[in-house]
């Protein structure tokens, strides 16, 4: 019996007259990479924003790590162990890689009131932290803006993993990347799973979903259609669930 890390129960969310989610329930199994798929407007991003504390549901509840939670903000969700890697990367391009790894969590030395940065320790530790998830650590001293898009995404994902989050949420992590960089980011996601972290990833790329996930949940028009174990299903079945051609055998 696998442990459930997060359970969303009967989540509903409307924006004015538009119903984005209706009675949506899903479970994330601890230590798995879960994919969330669906057509545009199916409610994927809304569900992810509710899990990461950006939005609050109109109805329904979320149980995370055995406790019912109601995150008021992304910061609260982060403190609770849910880290979201945003598409805009949440990195300061002008600052070095190590400074981004420690952004908002700086180590200091000397008298506490002076807040003097312990650059040497942060420098050394950030390299080791990234090393857990990537074989080729991006240059620690370089400003992030000098890195490629893939390297930046890797820094952002590895930072989330390194800070001891239990669940890492990613919305289209490779949307803007080339083939080689996409593969590198996928390797990092696999590295997160090897370290025992749970991952929820939204992607439009079904090939990618089949490459990296253990389980796939399908949304359609704000409702959860169901889930499949990745190795027990085929892309055709997932596509038919997404489009509403119900059942693997077809039929409307």
């Amino acid at each position, binding site marked *: 019996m696998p442990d459930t890390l997060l359970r969303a129960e009967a989540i509903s969310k409307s924006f004015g007259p538009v119903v984005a989610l209706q009675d949506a329930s899903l479970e994330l199994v601890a230590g798995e990479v879960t994919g969330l798929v669906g057509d545009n407007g199916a409610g994927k991003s809304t569900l992810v924003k509710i899990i990461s504390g950006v939005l609050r549901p109109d109805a329904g509840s979320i149980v995370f790590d055995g406790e019912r939670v109601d995150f008021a903000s992304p910061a609260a969700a982060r403190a609770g162990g849910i880290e979201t890697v945003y598409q805009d990367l949440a990195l300061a391009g002008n*600052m070095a890689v190590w400074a981004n790894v420690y952004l908002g969590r700086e180590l*200091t030395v000397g008298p506490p009131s002076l*807040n*003097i940065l312990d650059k040497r320790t942060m420098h050394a530790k950030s390299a080791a932290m990234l090393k857990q998830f990537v074989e080729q650590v991006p240059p620690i001293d370089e400003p992030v803006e000098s890195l490629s898009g893939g390297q930046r995404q890797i820094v952002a994902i590895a930072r989330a993993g390194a800070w001891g989050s239990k669940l890492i949420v990613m919305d289209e992590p490779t949307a803007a990347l080339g083939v080689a960089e996409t593969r590198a980011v996928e390797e990092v996601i696999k590295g997160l799973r090897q370290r025992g972290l749970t991952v929820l990833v939204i992607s439009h790329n079904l090939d990618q979903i089949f490459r990296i996930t253990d389980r796939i949940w399908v949304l359609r028009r704000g409702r959860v259609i169901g889930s499949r174990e990745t190795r027990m299903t085929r892309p055709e079945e997932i596509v038919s669930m997404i489009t509403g051609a119900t059942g693997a055998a077809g039929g409307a």
Partner: protein
Amino acid sequence: MASSREGRALSGLVRRHGLLVVFILVVGLMLAVKPTFGTYQNIVNILQQNSILGIIACGMTFAIILGGFDLSVGSVTALASVVGATAMIDIETYGIPIGIVGAFLSCLIVGAANGWLIAYLGVNPFVATLGTMTVVRGLIYVATNASPRFGVPYSFTTVGLGYILGIPVPVVIFAIVAILLGFVLHRTRFGHYVYAVGGNVVAAAEMGVNVQRVRFAVYVLVSACAALSGIILIGQTASATPQAALGYELTAIAAVIVGGASLGGGHGRMIGTIIGVFLLGVVANSLNLFGVSPFWQPVATGLILVGAVAADGFHKRGTFAHAK
């Protein structure tokens, strides 16, 4: 082959330390062609004349790295000197300390107003500080009837005209401010957050940086620097003029930009600002030594500013061409 590697090393040096190279070239050239340039008296002159502006520029560096700037610093400098001088002239006992405290407090109120408008109300820094610049200057004219105040106790001129170990007091104060604020900018968490907010305000907020508090604190800090400059100004003239420090805001911004900071925020260093201040100062001094009319000085400042930004843009394009 070796020569091309040397060439590349040289071009790398110029790219990374271009400002310093230009500064050393200008100073070296002046030392060679104008013997009076290198005299103790002239060096002290340059240091002294640029200290007040330099202190303002140190504060301005924070605002520009933050992605803003502060147009009110000239008015705030004048405010400090008028408030301070008035107290020193009119109050019999403890007039000097009361004047210093009063000058700082009045300026910090302006800084807090700037910070509140920009950080908490989201007013554009140009609009907010243009507003306070105009309002403060107007209030000074109203309060003084636009006439200068004379009669500051002579003892206070030590602050403006005195020497410590052969170095003018304003220069010593400037050095202390530059080292202190350089330390804050480059070695403390607060300085780190100034870069983070200037570089990517969304990322900084996501990672838990209190963006509003950082912005507020920076504008208060800029005003404190301007207040200090205004107090030194009292010491240099034993008086206060309502028209003091007109246009300092733009010269300070120019020095910071020449020093390598960008108005887009996120980039710049304290040492760059200090070299920027003295590059503009040395050029002004050189024109003076050659007997060129002082009216040419803004022309030189403007040309250096545009040249520095153009050179920076040229190098940035080069870098991108390589990265792609």
